[in-house]
């Protein structure tokens, strides 16, 4: 019995040490990606190509989700606000929920599942099929040529996707409350215009999505590059990208929100 307990404690110890090692490797890898980013900016066409794959191809899911989230927000907001006769404030509710929280967070979660997983799988498969080794043997650094352009493409795409999510969300809210339910159009837009502050709400939302973009793509490229070169290794890495990204987004969101919105205004 004591032997079994010792083995269990040892196993826990190993897992903790392994996790810390992995965290260290991830931090070193992130620093390496930043160091090797010169190529990405000197040959920006590499980044543009990846923006197409991670950004443009994510547009459909982001736009459609944004529209539906906005429509639901409008519906739920109207349902509650009309009890207090404040249905004209539904525009404010929709816009603030979207630009402060739902836009950046939902877009980042969708981005992690659509583009993050694709980046991990692609880099992982390139490793498993020796394409990264072949590149290194051709004296071309895979981190500079493959990883850094994908990282920057994700970082650039994320805030733009979040902004589009919010825009479509506001439109969805407008569609449901003004067009379908019949809330006054003037009060819908003017209440929104009065309540939403550019610096306090919109800029903070963009800052959030920038942080999420860095977190999601850093996790995605690291998981791909660190994946064991087997089918199970790549599938495990893809799953980890989605799970870790989701946790990182929600954790970061709390931290950022507590710094940005403290109820003083």
């Amino acid at each position: 019995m004591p032997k079994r307990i010792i083995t269990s404690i040892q196993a826990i110890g190993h897992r903790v040490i392994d996790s810390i090692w992995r965290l260290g490797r991830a931090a070193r890898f992130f620093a390496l990606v930043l160091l090797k980013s010169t190529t990405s900016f000197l040959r920006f066409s590499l980044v543009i190509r990846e923006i197409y794959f991670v950004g443009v191809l994510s547009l459909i899911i982001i736009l459609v989700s944004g529209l539906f989230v906005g429509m639901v927000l409008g519906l739920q907001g109207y349902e509650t606000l009309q009890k207090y006769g404040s249905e004209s404030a539904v525009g404010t509710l929709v816009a603030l929920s979207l630009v402060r929280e739902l836009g950046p967070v939902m877009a980042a979660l969708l981005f992690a599942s659509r583009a993050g997983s694709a980046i991990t799988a692609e880099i992982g498969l390139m490793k498993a099929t020796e394409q990264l080794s072949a590149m290194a043997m051709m004296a071309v650094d895979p981190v500079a040529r493959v990883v850094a352009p994908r990282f920057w493409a994700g970082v650039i795409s994320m805030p733009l996707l979040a902004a589009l999510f919010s825009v479509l969300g506001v439109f969805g809210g407008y569609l449901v409350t003004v067009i379908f339910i019949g809330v006054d159009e003037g009060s819908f837009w003017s209440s929104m215009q009065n309540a939403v502050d550019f610096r306090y709400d919109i800029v903070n939302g963009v800052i959030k999505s920038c942080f999420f973009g860095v977190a999601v793509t850093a996790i995605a490229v690291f998981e791909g590059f660190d994946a064991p070169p087997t089918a199970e290794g790549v599938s495990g890495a893809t799953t980890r990208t989605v799970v870790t990204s989701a946790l990182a987004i929600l954790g970061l969101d709390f931290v950022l929100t507590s710094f940005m919105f403290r109820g003083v205004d």
Partner: protein
Amino acid sequence: MSAPLIEIKDLAFSYNTRPILRSVNMTMPRGKVIAIMGGSGSGKTTLLRLIGGEIKPIAGYVKVADQVVHKLSRNDLFKVRRKMGMLFQFGALFTDLSVFDNVAFQIREHTNLPESMIRDLVLMKLHAVGLRGAYHLMPAELSGGMARRVALARSIALDPMLIMYDEPFTGLDPISLSVIGSLIRRLTDALGMTSIVVTHDVQESLRIVDYVYFLADGVIAAHGTPQEVKESVAPFVHQFVHGEEDGPVPFHYPAEAYQEDLRLETHFA
């Protein structure tokens, strides 16, 4: 006689505590095709990775063109690698690029040649491997033999001084196998480079190479010209060349005594 292109001296390497290579010595002259043979897990591919500087030895050194590979800085190592080519077991073509772009990859990365000249160079390299007409295909559309020929064209794109082939004959039909073998010989002679072929395929290699090294248990078990190898009576070489089931390389993986494993004594005592 000119200095050898590659000199390997007392080379040792181990993964964690498991020794893979122990005191390997080799010299590889320029313009020759050299085969490295040995059973699976004998350290052949590890040797290629040491020559390419992907991993570092725990003792000894590999010199390529008079430069000790593991002591080079990353920039200097990449400079040496520009003069090397490597053909991976299954080609390792970039799956998101066409055949043309795969061959052009290294030229575009390392030179500032105009696109018209790159086009001519790529078509010449593809012509050398007989696949000029397939320049527009994607890697997924190629057969195993064709993929390896494209990879061969890609590895000679910058006219290297050395090409390393990691099991180039694996999984090929007899025609493709013979084509790849002949291409290795022909390109080596035409470009004046050195080729190192890591392989299991005894018959095809003995047909095209100038010299053979046999690796077993991390050391060079035998070496010689193809003729010497064919006539060798050394037990290991004989077993390997003739594909005999048992010999110095045993059929059985080391295990407990058979009877003990089947617990015959316990059951029938």
